[in-house]
């Protein structure tokens, strides 16, 4: 038996609903239909009255989740696409993010953002918005890259007493498979060494972990050993693991599918440059999507975001510096 990243997300929600009566799911088409990607398939039948179809009102969906959380519930919000979470942005960053700090009352909501590019998605069904959420205080931002993490981190997200942005990558939904669901997991907030190596560190997260691993495999044939760090959460950012890896390799390339201005890769580079400058044998580098909206056509899309090939090119360039 094998289980996909998407099935792991569904299974985690099923477990959360079964284990905790405070949990409910709220989002567009999540009820009998089972969600646009089927991430809530059968859950409304298994848990009657606890998986609610919402009107197309992202602002009100998140607002209601905040109110329900204050009333003692543990809502899981499904955004149909990460891109539409911008309509709920105000409630997420200003209200939920500041709630505990202002009132001393926790605001435990999980907001699932199916994001990232897939071929044919185009400008408004492909975005990677982790950085804008991470920019605000008071939120945790998860970017699981594996089936195991998709499952265990989503369970963690529901248990955490703060608003959690759960950025799940649509490209991984069906592509990624595991033998079984995990019974134990690394703690939230800790990055993972996805592949050990001593010549260079590539820091990545979400779908880019797999592109980075493929690039590392390609360079292994050239006798270059690349260490790949999977951030798992971009906030908190596990600077310790990054720094320890850079201490071993002396070279850093950070890869993100999001746009270059500001963002996670910029943050990683800034921290390493300011706190680990002496660990570096070469200027730290980063690779991001191009600074345009995400193109629709597969040929353009493949050139817009980092791929194993472009990562390998960047890695070779960095080795020459």
């Amino acid at each position, binding site marked *: 038996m094998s289980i996909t990243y998407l099935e792991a997300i569904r299974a985690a929600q099923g477990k959360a609903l079964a284990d905790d009566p405070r949990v409910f799911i709220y989002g567009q088409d999540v009820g009998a239909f089972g969600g646009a990607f089927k991430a809530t398939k059968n859950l409304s039948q298994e848990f009657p009255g606890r998986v609610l179809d919402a009107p197309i*009102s992202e602002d009100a969906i998140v607002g209601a989740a905040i109110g329900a959380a204050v009333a003692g519930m543990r809502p899981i919000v499904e955004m149909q696409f990460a891109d539409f979470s911008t309509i709920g942005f105000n*409630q997420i960053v200003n209200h939920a993010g500041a709630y505990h700090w202002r009132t001393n009352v926790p605001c435990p909501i999980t907001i699932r953002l199916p994001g990232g590019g897939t071929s044919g998605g185009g400008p408004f069904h492909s975005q990677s918005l982790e950085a804008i959420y991470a920019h605000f205080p008071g939120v945790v931002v998860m970017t699981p890259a594996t089936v195991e993490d998709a499952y265990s981190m989503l369970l963690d997200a529901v248990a955490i007493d703060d608003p959690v942005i759960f950025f799940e990558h649509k490209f991984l939904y069906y592509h990624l498979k595991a033998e079984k669901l995990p019974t134990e997991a690394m703690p939230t907030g800790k990055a993972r060494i996805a592949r050990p190596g001593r010549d260079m560190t590539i820091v990545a997260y979400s779908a880019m972990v797999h592109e980075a691993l493929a690039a590392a495999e390609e360079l292994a044939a050239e006798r270059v050993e690349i260490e790949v760090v999977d951030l798992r959460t971009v906030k908190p950012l596990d600077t310790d693991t990054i720094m320890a890896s850079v201490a071993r390799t002396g070279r850093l390339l950070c890869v993100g599918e999001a746009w270059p201005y500001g963002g996670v890769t910029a943050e990683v580079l800034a921290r390493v440059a300011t706190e680990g400058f002496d660990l570096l044998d070469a200027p730290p580098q980063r690779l991001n999507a191009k600074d345009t909206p995400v193109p629709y056509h597969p040929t353009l899309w493949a050139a817009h975001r980092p791929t194993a090939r472009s990562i390998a090119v960047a890695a070779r360039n960095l080795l020459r510096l």
Partner: protein
Amino acid sequence: MVQSVVERSVPVEDAPLRAEYIKAFRGMLLARVLDDKFASLYRGGKIHGGVYLGRGQEALSVSVGLALRPGDVFAPLIRDGAGRLAFGESILDAVRTYLGSVLGPMRARDGNVHRGRPLTGLLPMLSHLGAMVPVVNGVLLGHRFKGIRETVGATCLGEGGTSTGAFHEALNQAAVEQLPLVLVIANNQYAYSTPSSRQFACHSLVDKAIGYGVRGHSLEGNDLEACLTVVGDAVARARRGEGPQLVVARLLRLCGHGEHDDASYIDPALKSAPFARDCLRLAEERVLAAGWMSPREVELWRAECVQKVEEAVAQVQREPGPDPYAEDWCALASRHLSEGYHGA
């Protein structure tokens, strides 16, 4: 029969109104006294940031607070000092928040009208207008999930707040879920300097109710009896399971947007409209004319209000302000997930 006794006696059908009216009038007066104190503290430079008063809106606001009961949820807005007090907020909470005391509910992290105690049902407002409506919906959904019955959620907005997407999304959401939401709109003719004619083009905001499939109520917001009756009816209907209620009151803001604002933009013609008369003065005239309170009782209550407010201010002025070195600078409830990284 002795004349004075006749004068103080009340027709049987007036008895419930009388008690409620007097209670409301007292609450309005307390709120006005508190607001006046904030205004004078502001002018004296004792308050950091803005001061936002509810002058002229006390009748409407107090009626919301009085119609609610423990277990209900209330998200007051900018001009709801009277409603807050009637719902049970203490004078101290208000003063501490305005003066930045660490002992206040917001611990000097947030100020002025952005205060509340969520666990007692008093939600602290987000500045973003309209944003509290879906949050009240969410609390009511939470109550439904938990099997808590017959609670009501109320929140207030100005007419300007009805132009937001949040208002639309949330009123529709409440209607879809048939939540016991009471949404009270104070059409005080101006949103900051913007007149209603630049805010909406429908004849009356209450006409929106039918579009959302909710019951609409309209009234003159300076008539305390009307406020008590109409808001009371709306809350009772929500409590009975009749779904969301939209209450639209017409009145005039009798102060600047904030105390920094002289409101020179207000059309003088509006000031002489019947709905522009001060609700507090009208209520006082009514309690005196009906003999529900004597002039002396009113003056005693006014003096008592002043004393309560002065005592609270004197106490809070002796309280500590925030200490940046004692502040934990941690935005998360899950402390173990806080990086503690502040970029320096």
